[in-house]
C-alpha cells in the first residue's frame, strides 16, 4: 500500500496506538506480551541470538499465546548484553541485562507467567527518550 498523504500516514499511526502505549509505558489495550531482544551487532556477539531463540522455543513449549518475541536495536548497555525488555499491559516495561540462555526460563516462569520481575537481572534505565 502506498502512503500518498500525511493524513494517510497519521491514520496508520493511530491504528498502532495500543502498540505504542504498551511499548512505551506498558499501558493501553494490547493483550500481547512483548519480549524485545537487543539484536544489534554487539548484542548478537554477546549471545542475543541464542537468547532470542530460547525465548521463541520456550514460549512455544509453554504454550504461551499472545507473546511476541521482537528483535530490536541496541540500547547501549554493552556491559550487560544481552539485554531484553518485557512489556506487559499494566506494568512498567522491565529491562533485563545479562540475559543468557540460562536466564530465559527464569524470566518466563517468574515474570511472564507469574507477573513478578526477576529482580536480580533488572537493569535500571538511566535515560530518557526524546
Amino acid at each position, binding site marked *: 500500500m502506498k502512503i500518498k498523504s500525511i493524513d494517510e500516514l497519521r491514520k496508520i499511526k493511530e491504528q498502532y496506538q495500543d502498540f505504542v502505549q504498551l511499548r*512505551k509505558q506498558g499501558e493501553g489495550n494490547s493483550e500481547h506480551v512483548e519480549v524485545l531482544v537487543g539484536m544489534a551487532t554487539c548484542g548478537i556477539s554477546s549471545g542475543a541470538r541464542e537468547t532470542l531463540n530460547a525465548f521463541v522455543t520456550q514460549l512455544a513449549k509453554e504454550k504461551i499465546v499472545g507473546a511476541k518475541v521482537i528483535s530490536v536495536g541496541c540500547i547501549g548497555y554493552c556491559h550487560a548484553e544481552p539485554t531484553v525488555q518485557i512489556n506487559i499491559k499494566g506494568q512498567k516495561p522491565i529491562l533485563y541485562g545479562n540475559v543468557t540462555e540460562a536466564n530465559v526460563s527464569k524470566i518466563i516462569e517468574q515474570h511472564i507467567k507469574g507477573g513478578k520481575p526477576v529482580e536480580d537481572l533488572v537493569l535500571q534505565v538511566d535515560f530518557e527518550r526524546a
Partner: protein
Amino acid sequence: MEGIRTHILVCGGTGCMASESEKVIKNLGLILKAREYKEEVKIVQTGCFGFCEQGPIVKIEPDDVFYVRVSPKDAKDIIDEHVIKGRIVERLLYKEPSNENTINKQEDIPFYKKQLRIALRNCGLINPEDIYEYIALGGYEALGKALTEMTKDAVLDEVKKSGLRGRGGGGFPTGLKWEITKKQESDVKFIICNADEGDPGAFMDRSILEGDPHAVLEAMAIGAYVIGADKGIIYIRAEYPLAIERLNIALKQARDVGLLGKNIFGTNFNFDIDIKFGAGAFVCGEETALINSCEGKRGEPNYKPPYPAEKGYWGHPTCVNNVETFANITAIINRGAQWFASIGTEKSKGTKVFALAGKINNVGLVEVPMGITLREIIYDIGGGIQGGRKFKALQTGGPSGGVLTEDNLDTKIDYDSLIEIGSMMGSGGMIVMDEKDNMVNIAKFYLEFTMDESCGRCTPCRIGTKRMYEILNKITSKKGTMADLDALKQLCYMIKDSSLCGLGQTAPNPVISTMKHFWHEYLAFIKDVDHPQGEGKYVPKNKIGIKS
C-alpha cells in the same frame, strides 16, 4: 598458510589494547617460539570482539574457545595446556557476572537520569525491520510535515535555529552546510550520509543504523528536499553487514509504501537512496575522500576548496552529513528548533552519543546533553573505574583527539570547550585509562592506527607518522634519547602544520597531548647516557623557529 593448524585470535580493539593485549600477543609469540610451534600456530590480532569489558580477549580457532581477561602471564597456560595438549583452560573461560554484582550496580545508579536520547530515541525500542513500528512512533511525520506544510526555507530555518552541528567530529553547523548547498545553482545535487565510522572503539553510527535505520532515511529525504537533491547515497563500510542488511530492508519498505521514490506524499518531490560500500579505510570518513571513493576512485582526500557543497560527487553540489547528525533531524522538525536548542550549551546544542570504553565499569553507548561534565559521564553513567582504581586519563576524539586528565573532569563538555582543553569532540569515542595504563603506549597505539590508515598522499602524513611511530617504539623499548623526544616533538608540529587533510593534521594530537600532560612518563623511558634519569637541559639541534 600451509601447515597452520591453529589460529590464536587476540583482540586488538582499543579497549583490549588498553588492557595489555599487546603484551599478551608478545608472550604468546615468545612461548610459541620456545616450544617450536611457530610454524603450526598463527597469532592474529583482530578487531574488537565487542566485549571490551572482559578484555583482553583471546579466541582459539578452529576450537572456537573464547578466553576472557587474559593477562600476559596466562599466555603460558594457553599454549602449553590448550594449544599443545588440547586441554581447555577453564579458569579463563567467561563466567556470568554474579547476581550480587548486578544488584550492586543497580544501587549505584542514581535515581535521576543523566542521559537524554534523541539520536538513539528508537534504538532498542522498535523492530528496525518493520517500517510500521517506526511510523507508529511518529516516523515519517517530519518528512510529511516538511513536504506538505513547510517551504524549503522554513525547514532550513528550523535546522539552522536548532543549532545542530555536525556529529562526525568537525562540528560544522548543519544548517549552514545545507544552506550553502541549497544556494548552488545546479540541476543535479546529491546528499550523502557518511556511515564510514572508523574511530577505534566507536560504534555510535552502527548502533543507529542497526536500531533505527528509517530515522536516517527520513532525515536524508528532508535534507534532499531542502538542498534540491533527488538522489542520496549512504556510504557505509562493508564491515557493517547487519547495518547494511537493515538499511536494505528499510529502503525496500520505504519504497514499497511510497516514502521513497516518485511524488512522495503526493508532492512533486522525488527522492531515492543508493548504498555504496567502503572498504573500511579510515580516511574515507573525510568527505572529499569519501566522495572519491563513491566515484570509484582511490579513497584519498582532495585539497579544499572547492568544498563538496560547491563541487562534490561527480562535480555536482553535494551535502555530506554523518549518521548521527541525520538521526537528530526528524526530532528537530517534529519537536521544533526551540526545544532542541534548549538542550546543551550556548554554542553546542542537543546531545552527543559517546561510546564508553576502556577501564570503565559500564562499557557501552550513552547519549548525553552537551554541557555535561566528564565526571558525570565517567562516574554517574559509566559507573566509575574498574576495580575501584584511580582514574588517569580519558581520550576523546579518537585518534585525532587528545587525552584529558583529572583536571578536566569538571569541564562542561561541548565542541569548543573540548578543543580548548586540548582534545576534540570527534565522532564520539571515549576511552578511559586508569593508573595502570602507560600513556606513551596509549599514544603509540593511536599513532599506529593513523599511520596504518594514512592514504599516503602527502609526505608529512605518509612518512612523518611512520617516523613518529618508529621513534615512539624506540622510546618505549627504552632505547630512546632526549634527542629522540625533541625529534618527535618537531615532527608533531610539522605534520600538524603541513598535512593535506584532517587525518594528518590531527594525527600527532595524541602524542602532543600526552607529552603535555604526561611528560614524565616519556622521560621515564629515556635512559640517555648524558641524562641517566632523563633530566637536565637538552639543547635541540637544527631547530629553526619551531613553536613548541
